[in-house]
């Protein structure tokens, strides 16, 4: 609870800092050591903090009956659903991969280096390519929808932390526990269900946090590269283009994206609380 208070205090401090800089900073931005790094403080670039909040109540488009708040909320909801789809898919793929790697040592040896390296390699570079499949890829009677690209990219980013976390968790039971299952003549998949999977919960939780965050980023970036309508990524780009006429608008979309991220994190936290209700705290990786 005290942490929450400090968080709010931190936010307030940021807001104050914003206004202070706005008051004293150069209207057209400035240079530090020859580098143009100081932000512009005029209202078209740097709106007042209260203007950002006021913008929520304005109509989205002149004459429209929908307020920005409702548009942003709808956008966040749209993106949120895709991120969840991506997260779910990522969990399924990640867990499957982890189980295969836990079962077959050769799979682990052959695939794990790629799994690890993929976290270092900017997979999101593939986003525009995956997105280009939209409308073009046809398998049987099934056409790849554009929104599937967004979900796929989300899943792509989400599945790696899950795969790594799950693999760690699945291989975490002590030799004593494994020997116990052997003494019951339990087949591998029974050991999986009764021992390995429950043991992996404390490892999956931090992995899920990472994956949820990655899924949100993946969705938003995918929307931006696709031009997919309806989501918050699209709104961010649209509103930032209106930057000079309505500078505060883009901030509403940013807050929406932040809220989305926090909502996903909250969801994972709830899942954590539920899954770990009889356990000590999560394992630190």
């Amino acid at each position, binding site marked *: 609870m005290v942490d929450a208070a400090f968080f709010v205090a931190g936010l307030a401090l940021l807001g104050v800092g914003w206004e202070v800089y706005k008051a004293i900073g150069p209207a057209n931005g400035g240079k530090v050591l020859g580098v143009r790094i100081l932000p512009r403080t005029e209202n078209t670039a740097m709106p007042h903090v209260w203007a950002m909040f006021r913008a929520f109540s304005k109509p989205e488009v002149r004459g429209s009956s929908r307020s920005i708040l409702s548009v942003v909320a709808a956008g966040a909801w749209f993106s949120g659903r895709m991120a969840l789809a991506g997260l779910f898919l990522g969990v399924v793929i990640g867990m499957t991969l982890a189980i295969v790697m836990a079962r077959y040592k050769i799979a682990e*040896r052959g695939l794990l280096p790629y799994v690890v390296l993929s976290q*270092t390699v900017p997979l999101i570079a593939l986003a525009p390519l995956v997105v280009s499949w939209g409308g073009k890829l046809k398998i049987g009677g099934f056409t790849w929808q554009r929104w599937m690209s967004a979900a796929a990219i989300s899943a792509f980013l989400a599945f790696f932390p899950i795969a790594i976390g799950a693999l760690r968790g699945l291989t975490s039971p002590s030799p004593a526990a494994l020997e116990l299952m052997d003494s019951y003549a339990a087949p591998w998949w029974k050991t999986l269900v009764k021992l390995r999977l429950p043991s992996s919960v404390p490892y999956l939780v931090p992995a899920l946090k990472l994956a949820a965050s990655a899924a949100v980023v993946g969705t938003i970036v995918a929307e931006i590269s696709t031009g997919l309508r309806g989501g918050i990524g699209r709104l961010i780009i649209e509103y930032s283009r209106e930057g000079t006429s309505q500078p505060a608008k883009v901030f509403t979309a940013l807050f929406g994206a932040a809220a989305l991220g926090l909502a996903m994190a909250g969801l994972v936290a709830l899942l954590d609380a539920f899954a770990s209700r009889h356990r000590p705290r999560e394992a630190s990786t």
Partner: protein
Amino acid sequence: MSAVADLRRRTQHALVPIGFGVAFLTVWELFVRVRHIKPYLLPRPSAIWGELHGNATLIRKAVIVSGTNALVGLLVGIVAGVAVAFAAGHFKIVNRLVTPMAIAVSAMPIIVIASILYNLISATSQVPRRLMAAVIVFFVVFVNVAKGLTQVDRTQTELMRSYAASDVEILRKVRIPNALSHFFTALKVAAPLAVVTAFVSEYFGGLQDGLGAKITSNVSNSRDAVAWAYVVGACLLGLLFYGTSVLAERFAMPWQARRVER
């Protein structure tokens, strides 16, 4: 196990992923050829290789642009992250203010602020991207280094107190070496992240000279094989950053490397 047998075993182990990789590329190539997959869906690895060679100079230029942005952002973020972590170790108030923010930021897609950075600073310079990368790196480095400075083995602090060691001595001899391993954990995550941030920021606007923009433009011009070639460039850049981090860790903490090899 003798050294020779050990080496042989290690080589055999290393061959497995290489084997998987080669098999994967072969299947990919055959699949595209046999099923006559259109190039705008999935180009052949051989075609990608061709484009990689053909556009080598251009690709290298884009890699340098994105790479420089990532590097500048990484360095700035590291300096800031370490500095604030030390401040947080010393002044409780800094810790209490920054840590909840860091946790919240890790949940949010903070990269979206790239969109306003172009407006705030300049749409024609690389500074917004570098700043974006710096911000993301800062949070990763801060969280880990702060943890390393404060979460020290209890026996070790008791020992130092039994030596009547001053706070500075405890910092130098215990907290900092402890934080070093946490720092490298952060670096191995932050370095590739800086690369990703550098070119994802390009999707939000600004100059179109880096890897992100080039990939997008080639895709929209249906030059998929070329786009894939740029992707390979991006992957190599990411690997370079990660590999350098791993080497830096081995260099700075030789005792850790020997331990892992056990």
